[in-house]
């Protein structure tokens, strides 16, 4: 099974970068394990929509890690999402073209190899107002725990 782990976020924007940082930690855990390297691709994505569709095209399994401002959880909580939550995360839906649910439908109609399995994780974050904002301590603290949880669920590590 060909799998991709995609971290989403802006690398210079406060809590927004948490998806990228968790993805890198998962990559480290995977690399340190005895699992074969060939079939797993770790990627960064700075936006969703059609561009994200391009990035997961051809994979059997896609794991998306993003941030979310839902107000329903404490900041720093890792949440597993369903496809219905696509519009809610900060990057999976690219408002400039189409939301990700529409992108998946479009890809399917166009004969793209849309992943049969999708796992979506998001960390509840503070709204980031300024590029100078540092990452929140609660969000930074969740990164190693979130990486271990995702590595366990996806790879059994």
């Amino acid at each position, binding site marked *: 099974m060909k799998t991709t782990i995609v971290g989403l976020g802006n690398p210079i924007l406060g809590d927004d970068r948490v998806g990228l940082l968790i993805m890198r930690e998962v990559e480290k855990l995977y690399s340190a394990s005895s699992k074969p390297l060939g079939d797993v691709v770790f990627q960064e994505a700075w936006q969703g929509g*059609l*561009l994200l569709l*391009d990035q997961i095209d051809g994979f059997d399994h896609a794991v998306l890690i993003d941030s979310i401002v839902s107000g329903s959880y404490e900041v720093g909580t890792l949440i597993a999402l369903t496809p219905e939550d696509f519009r809610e995360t900060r990057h999976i*839906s690219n408002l400039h073209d189409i939301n990700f649910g529409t992108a998946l439908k*479009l890809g399917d109609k166009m004969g*793209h190899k849309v992943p049969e399995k999708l796992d979506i994780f998001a960390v509840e974050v503070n709204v980031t107002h300024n*590029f*100078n904002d540092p990452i929140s301590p609660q969000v930074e603290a969740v990164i190693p725990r979130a990486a271990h949880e995702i590595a366990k669920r996806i790879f059994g590590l």
Partner: protein
Amino acid sequence: MAEPIIFDEKKKTDKKQLTIAPGSRLDGHVKIEIFLDDKGDVDETYFQVVELRGFEEFCKGRPVEEMPRITTALCGICPWAHHLASTKALDMMFDVTPPKAALMAREAAYCAHQVHSHVSHFYALAAPDFVLGPAAPVEKRNVVGLIEAVGVELGKEVLHTRVLAQKIQERIGGRATHPVHGLPGGNSKPLTKEDQAWILEQSKTFVGFAQKSLQIFNDIVLANKTYLDIITNKDLYCHDSYHMGLVDENNHMNFYDGKVRVVDQKGKEFAKFDAAHYLDEIAEQPLPWSYLKFPYLRKVGWKGLVDGPDSGLARAACLSRLNVSEGMATPLANAEWDRYMSTLGGTPVQFTLATHWARLVETLYAAERLKELVENNDILDPHVRNIPTTNKGEGMGIVEAPRGTLIHHYRSDENGMVTTVNLIVATAFNHGAICIDTDKVARGLIKNGEVSPGIFNMIEMVFRCYDPCFSCATHSLPGQMPMQIELIKRDGSKEVIKRNELE
């Protein structure tokens, strides 16, 4: 194919506050406020942008040569525009001219970026409003509904074109979305023969697809008298403004290089300037109700959100680039420019909805220009960088982003650390025009307090023409969509209509 649904049934509402949310098909957080008089007609409208992020402050104290890579993080929508405006500003700051091959490769990558952006915009954001119709059900009025209406094969071509354009940017620039290509004085790597041959083949595909897209626009929009009447209705999507855009020495538009040409409401040249003199020509006006400033022509002065000869506002997008041009530099696009101008009454075209047609003419130009650039073997010269030896401490760079003129201006200290950053982005140039058009369309369509989903969508169609991106305009990257429209009556009461209550 079914006929588009252009009009729908209006309903009078007695709610106190009207909100349309979420808005759709733009990037950023905006709010439209519409003030109604006692009869329920529109008195005033405000298009507000409500985000603010301190990107300029973030850059201060960083090595200035990092700016072309940092600025791409501002926005995932037009990273190449920021990358190249930034790189050009550094060319000026370090007083170094890149070799010819480097300039050709930069422009080639940028043409591919324009194809990618324009095709995405036309098919994902604009075309659903015309193919399905402004009043079509919202669940159908999107790119999936569009493909269901026009056929899967076209959809495949759209996605294929986007993917190829991304790959060209990646082959030239190292990364497609956030390039690591431009350096002060040149580029990070030369183009290989294999890349040249591959890109040339794709450019031919792009030319054909751009022609096909123009034919589709012709068949679906221009051949529909109702649409043509809406496009050319001077009481709706139309206002008399100045226009600006980069042109070459022949006054033909260019995305990457040249001078900024400004024409007035009659099409007469008002100003022509290079990046170093932009402050002589452009100033910015803040207003208390919006985070996004309003750039204006300094020599006309700030006169508020008005059109006509006394207005200092200049538009800057596809419509404007065609207006400041005296033709196009490539043959097929030039023929389309002639047809466009003769159909719409000649330059300057002030019909805002014509921007979509202009965008397709530009797509054809970008494809042809890309082909021209990669056909020329000079682009293979391995000498792609002149190493800078001095730092003047100040540099400006201007390019045409897909959505209009983009200016980067930096100052650095004696150690090459950033001390000042000023960015004037395309959406800011078009901010005043969006406000004026939004007001005019709302005024033209809302009477006696009667509204409908189709009317609200027709108001939203204003900003889609300009393809605004408020991420970099206010230097923010919001994740949730957030447009709302409030109707505020003269007595101060508000009425909110939620989109999902109507649609």
